[in-house]
């Protein structure tokens, strides 16, 4: 039986990818941020999963306005890093896990989540930056990855509650897979950020930290927070945080072990938050 062993939460700011790719990680601006992921890289080495289920959002890369899936699951064999306008990031191809991805799709669609199944797409910084933060700059990513894209670009986006319940359905799906796989689920995006308008650059340190507290201790209550609260308190792009609730919903109901917690301002326009939770 497959099972979810741990969940990882992290921002996926594109500038972090650029800093890595351009060799700037030791610069004073970036050093404290990458320092915060040193533990995480070691932890991942010691806790290698067989598959990573990676929840992220596409930033007008694979999905234009022609077609906007609320939830899209990748069942392909491989995904190329996208050219987002600066040229593709120099990172490895992402290898998928078609069998487990299809199994999860099958199960959660029967549980009334109306997924879009995707067999061909490029993946943008939303997916590759978390891999870089957790794995550094390897020749190949350490294991297959199932990309799970959430619409947080065009309103309405799915509610926190919907995301949390989806996480639960994913947990059930993983646990019904008959191969003995260790699966990690990663929730990415956030924390506070606003990338647009006169209000750009908003950071709400207090709100972010309260979000981290509640994500650990009372995720179901946290999932009741409305869209408008995210936007008002964490900025227009802070809404990405609903994706963390998918990962959290996939964890077991008992209290998780907090292996790592990190918070830093700034990365480009954004606050960076990071958590590692293990199932006990």
């Amino acid at each position: 039986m497959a099972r979810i062993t741990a969940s990882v939460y992290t921002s996926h700011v594109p500038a972090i990818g650029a800093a890595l790719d351009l060799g700037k990680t030791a610069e004073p601006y970036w050093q404290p941020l990458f320092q915060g992921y040193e533990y995480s890289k070691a932890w991942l080495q010691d806790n290698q999963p067989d598959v990573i289920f990676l929840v992220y959002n596409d930033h007008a890369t694979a999905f234009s306005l022609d077609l906007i899936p609320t939830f899209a699951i990748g069942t392909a064999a491989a995904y190329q890093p996208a050219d987002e306008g600066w040229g593709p990031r120099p990172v490895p191809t992402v290898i998928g896990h078609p069998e487990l991805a299809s199994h999860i799709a099958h199960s959660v669609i029967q549980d009334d989540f109306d997924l879009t199944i995707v067999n061909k797409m490029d993946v943008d910084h939303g997916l590759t930056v978390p891999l870089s933060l957790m794995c550094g700059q390897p020749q190949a990513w350490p294991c297959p990855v199932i990309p799970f894209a959430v619409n947080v670009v065009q309103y309405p986006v799915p509610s926190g509650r919907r995301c949390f319940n989806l996480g639960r359905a994913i947990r059930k799906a993983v646990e019904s897979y008959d191969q003995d796989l260790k699966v990690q689920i990663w929730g990415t995006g956030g924390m506070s950020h606003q990338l647009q308008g006169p209000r750009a650059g908003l950071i709400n340190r207090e709100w972010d930290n309260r979000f981290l507290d509640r994500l650990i201790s009372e995720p179901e209550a946290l999932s009741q927070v409305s869209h408008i609260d995210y936007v008002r308190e964490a900025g227009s792009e802070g809404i990405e945080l609903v994706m963390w609730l998918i990962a959290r919903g996939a964890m077991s109901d008992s209290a998780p072990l907090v292996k790592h917690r990190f918070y830093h301002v700034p990365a480009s326009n954004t606050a960076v938050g990071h958590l590692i939770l293990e199932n006990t």
Partner: protein
Amino acid sequence: MSLDKPYLDIPGTTIFDAEQSRKGYHLNQFCMSLMKAENRKRFKADERAYLDEWPMTEDQKLAVLARDLNRCIALGGNIYFLAKIGATDGRSFQQMAGSMTGMSEDEYRAMMVAGGRDPMWGRN
């Protein structure tokens, strides 16, 4: 439409909903086209001519030419789409975001290093 749009009262913020999306459809799809290296090259060679290939409004084209991102957003642009213009120009996301705030690049960067914009900004 009589659906609630509770987000209309948030200062300095435009929520990209279906209405904005409709308004900005061709503007945003133009931006998507810049994800191909050959299109970036063609755009840079003659911006106006490239824009004229798209059924955008004149206002949208002028806003793009002026790199006025606030205006682009008012005309239906979404920042993740508009970012492709910045990428084509070789600008960072921080430069793009800062350009919308009325601050200089250095001022904006300094604000971020100092912990970012106060979340109570513009609220009463």
